[in-house]
């Protein structure tokens, strides 16, 4: 029953739009004949070949940089005495919920051609290279995506049973060799899994390249341009890019599964391994390293909050404080703010209603149906927001279900995009709940449905709540699907920012950024307090 509803929902709002994208990419210009012509034409053009190369190259570089930064960071957090570790750990998770294109925009305001730091350095006779293009994009990706590698790797370092390294040392390895030959290989799957998340995020990210790429062609941006098309919208060619993007991501995921399924040596540590005893030199170095990264990643967000309280005339910044930007925001952007709040709330509700039952089913039932449902529910993860949105427009623009032009299409797109996360996290929680609890309830006379409501659901509440908050926060800063699907009155905060970036209204953009940062951090802080109280109580 749940499975059927799940298939219905995902079929209508995921598979059908994607099928339309595929279909469009395979039809000729009259939409009548089946053809691979679009593919050969697109791939034949150097411009799009460059776009593919750029996207993959930047993604690979960002992934490598992120990994190189994060692994020592993770080791320091897990095993070295780092001053203020709790604070570092809390702050290190923040980039996951803060919108990355805000970071990109802040970098432009600081280091761009007319950036504050650039001008200041210029006045002092120092010239820095351009931040636009690959350098800037890679930098922003590394600073905003590093938690994807850091967090699982810290967990993995902590999960290595201390007897492993004791055995290695006992057999005569030096500590360095023990780390290299025993601990790193055990942790490697976690590092790789995190790295692939980073790679996939870079493939589908729209905001960062939109802000920083300038004239460098990037996949997701090109697909958007082709579809919205200032000259003439071209769904077939946008479809081709979309399909290529999906195939690339799917390929990456497949390789990951293949590789990781053969390596599973998680060891269950009974207690987290102890901190290493190291000298002052290393201790200070580790502390400096961790704090530098955490702060560097947050500086852009901090900077944009400060800048939002300064006066802008057009794109030009004047260095005195003013509330003008917020006055402008109040005039123009209250409706979008309300939209963002409403959409995020509705979407997190829908995601929970769709994702939690599916997560339960795919974890508890070991049938073929459950496996297929699992795969389908994970699929949105491999689909860039832009591409899904294009599919939505193609599917719900006409016919029996017309959604374009209204608010519902946004909520549905958000729901589909975030379902994989809800399914995963709900699945993880269900996994922790012993099956025999449910069996006990059933044998005491409660039907499976009552059992779910009375036993499973109460035990899941904590996890579901944090899932809702995370969904809420990420939906609030969603840009890539929004920018294709919004219309008229149904603009969101991110659209306001997007439009003012295009139109040069920097003041409004900074104010909107600040509001967005507050809007995302507030629920996180509330959740954190709630969890703390729950754990203490």
């Amino acid at each position, binding site marked *: 029953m749940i499975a059927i509803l799940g298939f219905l929902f995902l079929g209508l709002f995921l598979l059908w739009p994607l099928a339309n994208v595929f279909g469009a990419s395979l039809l000729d210009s009259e939409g009548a004949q089946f053809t691979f012509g679009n593919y050969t034409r697109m791939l034949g053009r150097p411009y799009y070949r460059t776009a593919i190369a750029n996207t993959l190259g930047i993604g690979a570089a960002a992934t490598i940089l992120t990994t190189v930064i994060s692994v020592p960071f993770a080791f320091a957090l897990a095993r070295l005495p780092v001053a203020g570790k709790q604070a570092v750990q809390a702050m290190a998770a923040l980039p996951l919920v803060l919108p990355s294109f805000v970071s990109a925009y802040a970098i432009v305001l600081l280091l761009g051609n007319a950036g504050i730091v650039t001008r200041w350095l210029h006045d002092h006779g120092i010239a820095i290279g351009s931040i636009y293009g690959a350098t800037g994009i890679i930098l922003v990706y590394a600073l905003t995506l590093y938690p994807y590698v850091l967090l699982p790797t810290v967990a993995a370092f902590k999960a290595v049973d201390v007897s492993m390294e004791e055995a290695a040392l006992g057999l005569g390895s030096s500590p360095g060799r023990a780390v290299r030959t025993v601990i790193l290989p055990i942790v490697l799957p976690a590092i790789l899994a995190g790295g692939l998340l980073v790679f996939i995020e870079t493939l589908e990210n729209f905001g960062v390249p939109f802000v920083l790429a300038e004239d460098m062609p990037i996949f997701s941006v090109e697909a958007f341009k082709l579809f919205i098309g200032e000259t003439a919208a071209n769904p077939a060619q946008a479809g081709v890019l979309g399909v290529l993007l999906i195939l690339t991501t799917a390929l990456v995921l497949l390789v990951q599964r293949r590789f990781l399924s053969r390596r599973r040596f998680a060891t269950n540590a009974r207690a987290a391994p102890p901190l290493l005893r190291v000298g002052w030199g290393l201790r200070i170095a580790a502390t400096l390293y961790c704090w530098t990264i955490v702060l560097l990643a947050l500086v852009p967000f901090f900077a944009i909050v400060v800048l939002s309280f300064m006066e802008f005339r057009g794109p030009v910044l004047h260095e005195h404080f003013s509330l003008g930007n917020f006055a402008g925001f109040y005039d123009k952007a209250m409706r979008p703010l309300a939209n963002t709040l409403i959409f995020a709330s509705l979407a997190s509700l829908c995601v929970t209603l769709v994702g939690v039952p599916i997560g339960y089913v795919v974890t508890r039932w070991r049938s073929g149906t459950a496996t297929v449902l699992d795969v389908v529910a994970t699929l949105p993860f491999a689909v860039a927001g832009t591409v899904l949105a294009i599919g939505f427009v193609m599917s719900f623009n006409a016919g029996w279900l017309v959604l374009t032009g209204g608010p519902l299409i946004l909520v549905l797109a958000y729901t589909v995009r975030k379902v994989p996360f809800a399914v995963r996290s709900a699945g993880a929680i269900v996994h922790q709940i012993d099956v025999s*609890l449910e069996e006990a*309830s059933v044998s*005491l006379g409660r039907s499976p449905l009552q059992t779910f409501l009375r036993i499973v659901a109460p035990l899941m509440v904590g996890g579901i709540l944090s899932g809702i908050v995370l969904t809420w926060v990420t939906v609030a800063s969603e840009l890539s699907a929004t920018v294709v699907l919004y219309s008229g009155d149904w603009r969101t905060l991110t659209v306001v920012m997007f439009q003012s970036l295009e139109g040069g209204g920097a003041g409004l953009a900074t104010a909107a950024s600040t509001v967005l940062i507050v809007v995302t951090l507030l629920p996180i802080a509330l959740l954190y307090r709630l969890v703390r109280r729950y754990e203490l109580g």
Partner: protein
Amino acid sequence: MAGIHVKGASRSFGSVRAVDQVDLEIGEGEFFTLLGPSGCGKTTLLRMIAGFCELDAGEIRFGDKRIDKLSAHRRDVGMVFQNYAVFPNLTVAGNVAYGLRARRVPAAEIGSQVEAALGMVQLGGYGERMPHQLSGGQLQRVAIARALVIRPQVLLFDEPLSNLDARLRVSMRAEIRQLQQSLGITAVYVTHDQEEAMSVSDRIGLMNQGRLEQVGVPSEIYRKPATRFAAEFMGTTNLLEARQLGLAAPVTVSLRPEALRLADEAPADWPRLAGTIAALEMLGPLTRLDVALANGTVLRLAMLDQPQRPLQAGAPVTVAYDPARLVIVP
């Protein structure tokens, strides 16, 4: 309360026949134990009775009522799980009341029934505690009270003591037995521990590879094992070809270690065998000997501790066995 009648029950997982054509009659009020090594199908059979595992073939009845197609929550069984399965989000009293609420027992009666059930498992006054404040033994008592309070037709135990320490296991199994007797509920108990099985059961069903190997009262299964597997699984035994003992018949025999004695302590009509002490194991109340006979056969022998009698590995020794306890196994 009802007897349990299993006819031709089968279930395969992939190519493994977990339960293979099992026929079983369990009497009303009987304490029946399914005993066997891990993977023998005992838990699967129990879960078939509980309703958590569908049958590929066969049928199960409680009394006259066929229940194998009934969903688990309609079967009226009480089940006690290996890992307690006490609901962590409910109080002790909430756990015990859970089944009563499902049966829509009036609220006024629930309180007194819960208190009575907790009293039965010596947890009177623990009702308001949360499960995480309880020890493993106490959790299992909660689970037992929760299963008993609904007065089920059948009480099922899935290795309920295997997570408890050895001492607690011994006292809990006596309590379980005593509760079941005083309430007269039909009980099916699954364990891999033969000593536990022998101490609690009216009858034991010994399972191996999805089949019932032997069914009988504990003493019968121990003393008269019907198969080689039964002889070896129920405690230690000497499994020998008869000629190894100097007998002519071409059969395999089982001889328990305690059916052997040192020759000078044995009745005169017991056959004697000469050998040397190959190994000696002092276990406290018991001393175990491995005695190597001249033909190379090693016999295991167990006797009560005898401080006045020095025994040494390597020393020659003559042993005797009770011919009445020699069991031929197929």
